[in-house]
């Protein structure tokens, strides 16, 4: 990232090669149309290059920053094409979803990849798994629908056939529980 901020195109291409497949996977969950998902991905990298200056290494890891930009773009794209909400074929959310360990991030270059940083990262990852396990099934399902599939409160409510108010409070409770648990288990995550 430091080199991209300096305007190094080669570094930018390497960054693209290392991250694009993971990001496209994330976008495809929210925007299942392949062509539109690739358009979103294109916008993301154009933005990253132009906004690299605003990336603050003291605030976030490059990958979490990039993931946020990608998810925001995908959600914006869905919002834009509203009128035909995409709820037709949602992937099954089994309890095992969070445990799937095929992540690819291990091969990702990190700006801070000392052995200690790697250890802390492995620890934080385990903490997230533990804390997701503390959530009630309903809360976890709401969180997964919102995070992976980019559904709004209303869409989650109709997907689960549950009242909107319940969905909102399940999500609020899920976020609160997750936060408290992570603060307890992994203070490093802040």
């Amino acid at each position, binding site marked *: *990232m*430091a*080199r991209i*901020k*300096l*305007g*190094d*195109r*080669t570094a930018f*291409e390497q960054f*693209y090669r290392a991250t*694009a*497949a*993971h990001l*496209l*996977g*994330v976008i*495809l969950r929210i925007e299942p149309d392949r062509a539109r998902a690739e358009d979103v*991905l*294109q916008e993301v990298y*154009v933005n990253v290059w132009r906004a690299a*200056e605003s990336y*603050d*290494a*003291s*605030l*976030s*890891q490059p*990958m*979490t920053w990039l*993931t*946020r930009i990608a*998810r*925001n773009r995908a*959600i914006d794209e869905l919002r834009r094409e509203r009128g035909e909400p995409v709820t037709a074929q949602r992937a099954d959310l089994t309890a095992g979803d*969070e445990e799937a*360990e*095929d992540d*690819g991030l291990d091969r990702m270059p990190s*700006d801070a990849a000392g052995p200690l940083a790697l250890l802390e990262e492995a620890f*934080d*990852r385990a903490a*997230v798994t533990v804390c997701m396990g503390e959530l009630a099934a309903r809360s976890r399902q709401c*969180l*997964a629908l*919102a*995070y*992976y599939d*980019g*559904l*709004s*409160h209303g869409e*989650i409510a109709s997907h689960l056939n549950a009242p909107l108010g319940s969905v909102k409070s399940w*999500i609020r409770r899920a*976020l609160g529980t*997750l*936060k408290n648990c*992570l603060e307890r288990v992994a203070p490093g*995550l*802040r």
Partner: protein
Amino acid sequence: MDYGRRTLADRLAAEYVLGTLRGPARRRFERLLPAHRALQEAVARWEGRLGRLAEPVAPAEPTPELWWRIEARLFPSPSVVPWWRRVTAWQTATFASAVVGLVFGVLLLREPAVPPPIIVVLAEQPNAAQAGLRAAGFVASLAGDGKQLVIRPLDQAQTRLVNRAFELWAVPPSGAPRSLGVLAEGGTTTLITPAFLRDAAALAVSVEPPGGSPTGVPTGPVVAVGALRS
């Protein structure tokens, strides 16, 4: 809405990162984000908590054309040249004539056995204006024996920062830039040069908090760049 209230800011940031903050509330939040440090920090914390959820998502390889499309949009000219090599012939020539006198003067004062110093002009970048600087060119002189580097702004009166500092970086041909040190305010700075400067492809000056980058890599805008040839 009072976004300054911590719990509200935290709740909004959580729903924003999760993606359930929608409609006008989402747009308002995005508008406020760049100016509110507290919001940015709350968002970053939630990215840390929720970001790992994205890890198990199966990757999907984009079509090869996608990179070409991105390249075509960002870099309309076909060549892909790192920025330090773009500081090229004509600029070098322009500055060379300007510094010949200086080099000559320095040479006359030196012992004949010592190799001449290398003069590097760090050209002002477009970011300088955004950082509120009226001028941001620097000239650096690397001693012939390679032990010392002296750098000063071309325009000492106009190249000034308030509550921030200039930091000098050695940029290797690959890998992250490495700090050479924070520059003295508004004057000449003499730095003892570390060994890694020998491999550097360029020098760069960025704007950092007082005392220098807290992270060890440039965090602020890069305002001046100069190619190094040894």
